[in-house]
């Protein structure tokens, strides 16, 4: 087994792997083999990966090694990763965690995939996820649940549960993920890793199968903020195929964060509502410790109030299902995807293909979405929710007049046991209590590990102004330079 210094390859961060690659200490083929072997060894129990493309990965790694000898020195060249199975790939099937797409292969690569391929990254496989990204526990995957590497039988969070679990277990140093209501941050928190959901429009949604178009945003899960920045840098920027993708230039986040020494002058808003009823006591203590650490690094904590935040979750459960019900209409069994056996007529074809292809949570949300948009209910639900969304955005604007970032817990509790909430959709939805507002308003947000409660990781969430990812990354980087929570590897997979 190859080691760098006295550490095995998987124990290295992406940044360290990249350095070892460019120093010629290891080859991409070696690193890729190591990752594939780890998937072999651990994924039977974790179930974090839906498909693995070992042959193609090793080929890509070999190509990367050749490029490096030819003088290419990109920071991501030859680094292996796993894509959430919501990103379309030509080389591997794209299932979105659904029976509907059980045997679907996309004829094109998502922009994110295209860009990371171009940067020389090596795709190991596709990560498990809640079906069509709908869920907070990964229990809604057609391909089975994912185990949280910290404790067997607990959930990894969702919908990017596979991405978070595999990074926590160090099957790869990094994975792509998406976040519609907390789907990067909540599993990152549950699995003790770092995840960033950038500003809406920062990363192209082309080829990222839509759940709720005005909320979905692609991002990264890694072990450190620095690694997140490395990958996000390559993913971001204008895309002529996505009309909602921002044309704003992408700053050099890495350069910025490497020059950060402390957090002097940073004003951190702490909303009292994030510590109110519903927050687990043990989680609250750990998060407060994390905030104290920020303070000790020079930041000023400012107590703020965001009274409308708690409505975010209600607005979210109107807007997201409404958009989803429409986005998922294309899965009709006509041009691709599951088609039922022997349809009697067109209606039968539609109804059975969709009822068989979609799982129960997806169907539930499609029904809610159809209802809130239907004649007579549009104003009471959909329009009302979009107005409340604006109210919440205005509240954020006001808060950001006096603070630079807003900080608090990522989730109300640590990872729970499988099956604990699967009978109660509303209880499950409350997982996203602190995360949905950033999606409703398109703000960038990040979750990083800040300690443990009952032996399980706790996430600290940071939210910033639109297009101010820099502030999030700098803050998290300074925190991670001073603390070691992000470097703890779950024992079962160390």
């Amino acid at each position, binding site marked *: 087994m190859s080691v760098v210094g006295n550490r095995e390859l998987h124990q290295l961060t992406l940044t360290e792997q990249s350095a070892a690659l460019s120093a010629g200490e290891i080859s991409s083929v070696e690193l890729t083999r190591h990752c594939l072997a780890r998937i072999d060894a651990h994924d039977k129990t974790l179930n974090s990966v839906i498909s693995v493309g070992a042959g193609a990965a090793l080929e890509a790694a070999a190509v990367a090694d050749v490029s490096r000898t030819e003088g290419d020195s990109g920071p991501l060249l030859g680094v292996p990763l796993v894509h959430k199975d919501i*990103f*379309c790939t030509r080389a591997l099937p*794209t299932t*979105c965690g659904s029976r509907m*797409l059980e045997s*679907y292969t*996309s*004829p*094109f690569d*998502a922009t994110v995939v295209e860009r990371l391929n171009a940067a020389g990254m090596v795709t190991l496989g596709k990560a498990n996820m809640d079906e069509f990204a709908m869920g907070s526990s990964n229990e809604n995957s057609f391909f089975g649940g994912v185990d949280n590497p910290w404790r067997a039988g607990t959930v990894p969070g969702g919908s990017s549960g596979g991405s978070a679990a595999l990074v926590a277990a160090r099957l790869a140093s990094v994975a792509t993920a998406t976040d519609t209501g907390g789907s990067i941050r909540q599993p990152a928190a549950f699995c003790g890793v770092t995840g960033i959901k950038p500003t809406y429009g920062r990363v192209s*949604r*082309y*080829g*990222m*199968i*839509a759940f*709720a*178009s*005005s909320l979905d945003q692609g991002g990264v899960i890694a072990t450190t903020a620095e690694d997140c920045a490395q990958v996000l840098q390559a993913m971001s920027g204008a895309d*002529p*195929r*996505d*009309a*909602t993708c921002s044309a704003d230039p992408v700053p050099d986040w890495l350069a910025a964060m490497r020059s950060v020494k402390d957090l002097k002058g940073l004003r951190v808003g702490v909303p009292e509502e994030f510590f109110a009823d519903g927050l687990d006591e043990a989680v609250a203590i750990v998060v407060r410790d994390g905030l104290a650490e920020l303070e000790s690094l020079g930041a000023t904590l400012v107590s703020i109030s965001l009274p409308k935040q708690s409505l975010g979750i209600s607005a979210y459960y109107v807007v997201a299902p*409404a*958009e989803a*019900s*429409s986005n*998922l*209409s*294309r*899965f*009709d069994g*006509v*041009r*691709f995807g599951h088609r039922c056996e022997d349809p009697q007529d*067109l209606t039968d074809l*539609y109804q059975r293909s969709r009822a068989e292809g979609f799982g129960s949570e997806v169907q539930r949300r499609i029904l809610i979405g*159809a209802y809130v*948009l*239907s*004649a007579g209910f*549009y104003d009471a639900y*959909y329009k009302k929710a979009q107005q409340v969304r604006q109210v919440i955005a205005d509240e954020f604007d006001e808060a950001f007049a006096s603070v630079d970032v807003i900080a608090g817990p990522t989730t109300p509790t640590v990872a729970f046991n499988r099956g604990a909430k699967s009978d109660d959709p509303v209880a499950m939805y409350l997982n996203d209590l602190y995360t949905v507002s950033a999606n409703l308003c398109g703000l960038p947000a990040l979750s990083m590990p800040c300690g443990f409660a009952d032996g399980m990781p706790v996430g600290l969430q940071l939210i910033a102004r639109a297009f101010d990812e820099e502030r999030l990354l700098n803050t998290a980087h300074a925190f991670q330079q001073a603390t070691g929570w992000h470097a703890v590897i779950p024992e079962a997979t160390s």
Partner: protein
Amino acid sequence: MSAAWECVIGLEIHTRLQTQSKLFSGAANAFGAEPNSQACAVDLGLPGVLPVPNREAVAHAVRLATAIGADFARRSVFARKNYFYPDLPKGYQISQMALPVVGPGVVECALNDGTTVQVGVTRAHLEEDAGKSVHDLLDGFTAIDLNRAGTPLLEIVSEPDMRSAAQAVAYARHMHALVRWIGVCDGNMQEGSFRCDANVSIRPAGSETLGTRTEVKNLNSFRFLERAIEFEYTRQVELLEDGGTVTQETRLYDPEADETRAMRSKEEANDYRYFPDPDLPPVVVDERFVTAVVEAMPELQHVRRARFVNSLGVAPGDAAILTNDRATADWFEAAVAAGAPARLASTWLIGEVFGRLKRDELNLEHIPLTPERFAGLLLRIEDDTISGKIAKRVFEALWESGDTADEIIEREGLKQITDSGAIDSLVDEVIAANPSQVAEYRAGKTKLMGFLVGAAMKVSAGKANPAQLNAALKAKLDI
């Protein structure tokens, strides 16, 4: 039409926009390709694709708004219209609902009987077309071709301002000419580039309230439009007079049976669940874009028509014909620019040129004559070098060869005889050769004048100036 029942008609016209690519994708917007060969991933609604709107489609909306004097919305919003149909790939059509791109306007349309009708245009909105379902290709199956899916449409919705099939046809023809004129749509009705949905209701004459309407879909000829409305009118009158009621429904016109019937697939009431498309921010268009599009627009049809009458002296009826389409008007103006007298040019173009084109089954695009050569001919008529009759011979020769009128006149010696000495000797010759007719004429049978002129013309091989010949003959005979 019965005097007791008034017919109320509103039209929705779907015009397919003339663009290279589709409304939201870079696939070709063209008719007649192999099935599904021009349907890209976006048109197929594959998982992960996103729409990006076509600038030229928005420019076309600016043109239409300008042409009908309507508002062009500086901010308009695309919305999703949700319903399931196999030729609607995404399960929704991207259209516009609350904020359409073109606001209200009015057009005045002329009917064949000389009356006019004012029709309000409520709105026009951009939307993507659906694909095509072919029901009779395969036994037991419907075949889906998505080449048409995503092609850009501008749906023009009128107020219920028409009261007869004739008025509806006049409005449809007016809009048809207009969209072609401004280059928005090719107007090809067979290919479905211009299709009408007619909303038809009836009410007791004098009533102000609207009756229940039916919508007759996809009428792709003016004749069908007229027939469908007339059929609907009669059907609804009979229904109500028999004590029945009209059901609000979508109907289809069957040209073979010359009747409309309810569409089965549209029977169930649809709830389209419109909402703003979250994939598309509002279309916000700046002043510069609008100005550039408007400045590049052609002179509008009615403006040009009025100019032909007022500045060029063309007869109003002829001006209407010449401005039926831009190609004709341009050709006419090119001839005038080359020196052709406008009035003469208009009668010759409409009479001789159109007649010849029709005979040869050609359109103006393939005319073997240039406006300059045509003007050359008219100039020789104008300056009396040739008579109108000879001119028709020259015209035929112009059509067949690439020569100019002057070359033909010269080569074939067709120059008109205007020399009075030559005409006098012609007259003398004819009087000498026809003594009995001359005697009869002088005895009072003045009708023989025609015979004698004809005889003289024949001797001159048609080249004598007819007016001079007449005068000279009369002078000699009436002594």
